[in-house]
């Protein structure tokens, strides 16, 4: 069920700019609190970790709990000093990892 994450960030920026990055990952984020119609608890399945790196250096990471709404949306910022690649990683409870990359040109 590896769905494609949605990313929104500028393609170009000036050196030293603080840019805004928006990410959205389609995912059920099953909290483990819900019960199915037989009264059994639906097992927890969430994205528990998100990370953003720029040219291999960490920019922003988040540890997520079941209290994050379905289709986890995260917005944060990054200061860019050089051209390079943002790498985004989402880690699922079942161990699967979804990654995405986006390039930016800094002048």
């Amino acid at each position: 069920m590896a769905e494609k994450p949605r990313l929104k960030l500028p393609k170009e920026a000036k050196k030293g700019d603080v840019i805004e990055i928006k990410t959205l990952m389609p995912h059920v984020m099953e909290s483990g609190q819900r019960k199915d119609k037989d009264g059994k608890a639906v097992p927890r399945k969430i994205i528990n970790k998100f990370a953003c790196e720029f040219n291999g250096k960490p920019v922003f990471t988040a540890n997520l709990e079941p209290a994050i709404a379905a289709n986890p949306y995260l917005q944060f910022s990054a200061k860019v000093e050089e051209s390079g690649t943002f790498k985004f990683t989402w880690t699922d409870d079942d161990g699967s990892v979804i990654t995405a990359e986006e390039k930016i040109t800094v002048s």
Partner: protein
Amino acid sequence: MRQLSRRATLALSAGAAALTLTGWNSSAFAAAKEAADDIAKFTGGKTATPGKISIELPEIAENGNTVPLAVTVDAPMTADNYVSDILIVAEGNPNPGVATFHFSAMSGKAEASTRIRLATTQNIVVVAKTSKGEFFTAQKQVKVTIGGCGG
């Protein structure tokens, strides 16, 4: 069946209200304690100073399943003075933990937003840690019309 007098009805409903109130209070108290434990673990027992943090949350959330939350910490975000971690806890949720954000000097701004689930009307507490080891805190109450934890 005998009709209940007006007075008896009032007394009954008052009793029921008192019961529900105490029931609600005790569970909220337990969750608040768990939330306090989470915060103590995060700060390592240090006290967090109120201030420097602004929390953007709706005053009334009609649907607890997805409540927009934005956190901003007033900090210079330079290489030697930046906000390194932000902890968010919801005192009234079955699990008070919501998220922990980790920033670096490359973040540019100590600011992030997401969408959260809230089970009931409650306080959201945010604690921020700076690279210098200082802690700041802020909280905000949200009224929730429909809870967001299934059932």
